[in-house]
């Protein structure tokens, strides 16, 4: 475990970038440092690998002061990923990734074989191996940066706004990839961002820093959203904190109605029966069970349902897997105000109204309030 113990950083010009910061960074999880620009995130991260030396306090790694070992030994045990990837433009992709293994004395062949393995792990096509960095897009370069940091299999990964220079679609891909890699490899990741959405998505624990380098709150993202420590954190979380919080509630508890669902080959009696159900609309599915669209029941004629005249049903949510946020989003976007739930194969599992989603949200909030466990600034709690 990395323990930041009452660390202060005062730069030579007198700027206090970090002020008596204490954090316990749990092993094998993603700890996100988030906060407004200039609040000392980068400084904190760089003190962990001693790119910046603390003015006061200590950083302990598994209980040992990080100054006990030679600085380069320390750094070789921590992958480091920076904003613009910082690739070596004179080296091919495979040799960029092989850098640290080569520094550790691996043979060229072994280091390159390892590099190719990592390219696959971070989702880079093997055909990129012999290219140079300028021949890659920003997102691809960032994947190389991650692969290079992972090459010698360090237990710790330090990442400073690694995805902030790529467009939102690529960023989402990189974030999902990081979560997958983390699940597979179980690294201890310290991740800096100024994007609260990214923090909430990636963080097992999120540390919110305020300007002047003081800790405002250290908590799992769901708690951050439900119980912000003070007005600063609440403000930083933004106006849609309530909606965002719904991502942490499962859609599993939603009551799905199956009555208003008819297959495209339904008989007149079936349509009539469905039409009498609780919903003013029926959902028409194909023979394979996939949703095709909405219709009012009396506009449907048995045996000659015209798919082109159905109301589009939009993107459905996966029942039980997606969050209440996804379910609510589907309902809000649906022309009928009803969300379509599907199973993992994409077959319609039922429909649910905005009202019953709202009901589920109230229920989830009530359940969440029973166990407030926010870690306030200064307090310390170890999560394993």
């Amino acid at each position, binding site marked *: 475990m990395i323990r930041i113990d009452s660390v202060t950083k005062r730069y030579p010009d007198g700027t206090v970038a970090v002020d008596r910061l204490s954090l316990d960074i749990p092993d094998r999880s993603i700890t996100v440092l988030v906060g407004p620009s200039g609040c000392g995130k980068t400084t904190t991260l760089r003190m962990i690998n001693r790119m910046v030396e603390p003015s006061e306090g200590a950083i302990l790694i598994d209980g040992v002061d990080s100054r006990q070992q030679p600085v*380069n030994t320390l750094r070789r045990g921590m*992958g480091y990923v920076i904003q613009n990837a910082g690739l070596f*433009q004179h080296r091919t992709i495979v040799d960029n990734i092989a850098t640290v293994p080569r520094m550790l004395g691996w043979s060229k062949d072994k280091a390159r074989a390892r590099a190719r393995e990592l390219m696959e792990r971070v989702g880079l096509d093997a055909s990129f191996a012999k290219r140079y960095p300028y021949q890659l897009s920003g997102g691809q370069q960032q994947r190389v940066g991650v692969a290079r940091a992972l090459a010698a299999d360090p237990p710790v990964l330090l990442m400073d706004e690694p995805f902030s220079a790529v467009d939102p679609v690529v960023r989402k891909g990189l974030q999902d990839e990081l979560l997958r890699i983390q699940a597979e490899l179980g690294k201890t990741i310290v991740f800096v961002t100024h994007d609260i959405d990214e923090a909430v998505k990636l963080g097992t624990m999120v540390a919110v820093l305020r300007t002047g380098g003081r800790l405002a709150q250290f908590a799992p993202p769901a708690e951050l959203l439900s119980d912000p420590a003070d007005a600063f954190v609440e403000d930083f979380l933004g106006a849609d904190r309530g909606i965002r919080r719904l991502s942490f509630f499962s859609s599993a508890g939603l009551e799905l109605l199956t009555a208003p669902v008819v297959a495209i080959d339904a008989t007149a009696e079936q349509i009539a029966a469905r039409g009498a159900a609780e919903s003013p609309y029926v959902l028409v599915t194909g023979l394979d069970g996939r949703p095709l669209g909405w219709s009012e029941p009396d506009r449907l004629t048995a045996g000659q349902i015209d798919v082109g005249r159905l109301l589009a049903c939009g993107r459905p949510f996966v029942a039980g897997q997606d969050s209440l946020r996804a379910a609510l989003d589907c309902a809000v976007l649906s022309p009928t105000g009803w969300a379509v739930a599907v199973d993992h194969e994409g077959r319609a599992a039922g429909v649910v109204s905005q009202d019953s989603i709202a009901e589920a949200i109230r229920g989830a909030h009530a359940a969440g309030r029973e166990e407030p466990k926010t870690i306030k600034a200064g307090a310390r709690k170890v999560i394993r």
Partner: protein
Amino acid sequence: MNVLNFVSAFFSDSAHWHGYDGIPTRLWEHVQYSLEALALAAAIGLPVGLVTGHYGRGGNVLSLFATAARALPTFGLLVVTTIVLGFGMLPVMIPLVILAVPPILVTTYEAVRSVDPSPVDAARGMGMREADVLLRVELPVALPLIFGGLRSAAIQIVSTATIAAYVSLGGLGRYIVDGLYQHDYEKVVGGAALVAGLALVTLALFWAAAKAAVSPGVRRST
């Protein structure tokens, strides 16, 4: 008679092609002086430029020194060194080296200093030793500019090495000095043409060397 006639007359005279005053001998002498001066200047300029560029300090002192060195008239310097040291190789080498160090030193310093800081930061962050950061991360990227500095130093040396002849040494300057003395303009123009040709060959050699030494991943800035 025009210049081209002088040139063709000079090169077609078979007397100019052998003996201690023949073209091969003089050319070889000139190449030797130039190489020697370039090697000395590089031995001073490259390490100092690399190290100061790496640490980003001493830029002001460097440019002051470079400006001062450029202001020294090479020929005047030759007179002084010859008076002080007598005839020989050393008094010729000193002005040539002083001529060549500033372009090497200043471009090397600038080349290293202008390397993108993020790969350097990444290299340090992964635990690379400081010497390796300089030699394996900064140098390969700075190489095209460094070659540019070496190239202009080499061209200046090749054209200025003619001064060796003023103090009784050989080289292509011999033709120019002797020709002027003997009012043999054929010789003067022939010698000048040889110097110009050698400068062009130098350019081509540096172009080829840079092409071979610089990684294709480094986009050339010259």
